[in-house]
């Protein structure tokens, strides 16, 4: 399941992302905003998506989140506050592929203001297709992050 969220600056891209996900055969749930509201706040959507991803993963099901705002910065900061979330900001498909491979990213933050639709589409596709390597050194580092969250 893919959970989607965006503030006003990511709203129009989110509409397109839903179409792409449907075309690619992914199931998704839109966590808002449900309308274009210029004074909405990105942490609200970051928290909604992050909590949904964690809940679904706790049930043993594969789940990822895609968050969209203007810069992809604030929304990734907010999502990463939540235990179990590893959110990365994507402007380069190669970088996102490497970050899923190494860090097992479970949320992608997309900077709508800096990416063409084609680039956004490419990055989201790469994110959803990429797999965590599961290598021992990466697992060891993820365990350290878990310990930090619990400490």
């Amino acid at each position, binding site marked *: 399941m893919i959970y989607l969220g965006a503030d006003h600056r990511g709203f129009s891209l989110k509409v397109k992302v839903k179409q792409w996900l449907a075309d690619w055969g992914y199931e998704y749930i839109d966590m808002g905003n449900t309308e274009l509201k210029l004074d909405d*706040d990105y*942490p609200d959507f970051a928290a909604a998506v992050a909590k949904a991803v964690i809940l679904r993963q706790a049930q043993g099901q594969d789940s990822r989140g895609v968050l969209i705002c*203007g*810069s992809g*910065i604030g929304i990734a*900061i907010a999502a990463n506050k939540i*235990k179990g979330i590893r959110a990365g900001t994507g402007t380069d498909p190669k*970088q996102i592929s*490497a970050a899923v491979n190494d860090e097992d990213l479970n949320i992608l933050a997309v900077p709508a203001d800096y990416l063409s639709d084609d680039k956004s589409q490419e990055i989201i596709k790469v994110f959803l297709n990429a797999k965590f390597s599961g290598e021992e050194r990466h697992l060891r580092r993820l365990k350290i992050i878990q310990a930090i969250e619990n400490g």
Partner: protein
Amino acid sequence: MKIYIGTDHKGFRIKEKLKVWLNDWGHEVEDFGAFGLNPDDDYPDFASKVAEKVSENPDSTRGIVVGATGEGEAIVANKFRNVRASVYYGGPEEIIVLSRDHSDANVLSLGVLFLDQETIKKMVKLWLEKPFSGTERHRRRMAKIKEIEDHHGKAS
């Protein structure tokens, strides 16, 4: 300004250069390692030390962490209260500007595999010089991030 820096093996060489630049620009630098090039070291160990210090004085200190993509270090740093870490691994300098202007980022996480030395130098300088806008809507959003920390964040 007091600046804490840390990196794993991937950013070790650039960290040594960063120290020189930061000193030249008049900042006080504290280095949290790595202190040698060890391919087996783990980035969360260094990023967490930097973030912990910034967390203690989030408005008057900054952190700079370096990694391959920069994502893992930012994830770790953002687990700490009052830390707002943004990633930079290329692209328009507006990303750097907005990380300060809108998000008041106090940790910068650099993806060294995607950046050359001159770009790093330029972007770090810009990031250190650019103030937070302080506008009401950005403060409101930061307050909401704090609420998330209170309810869903790290235990201590």
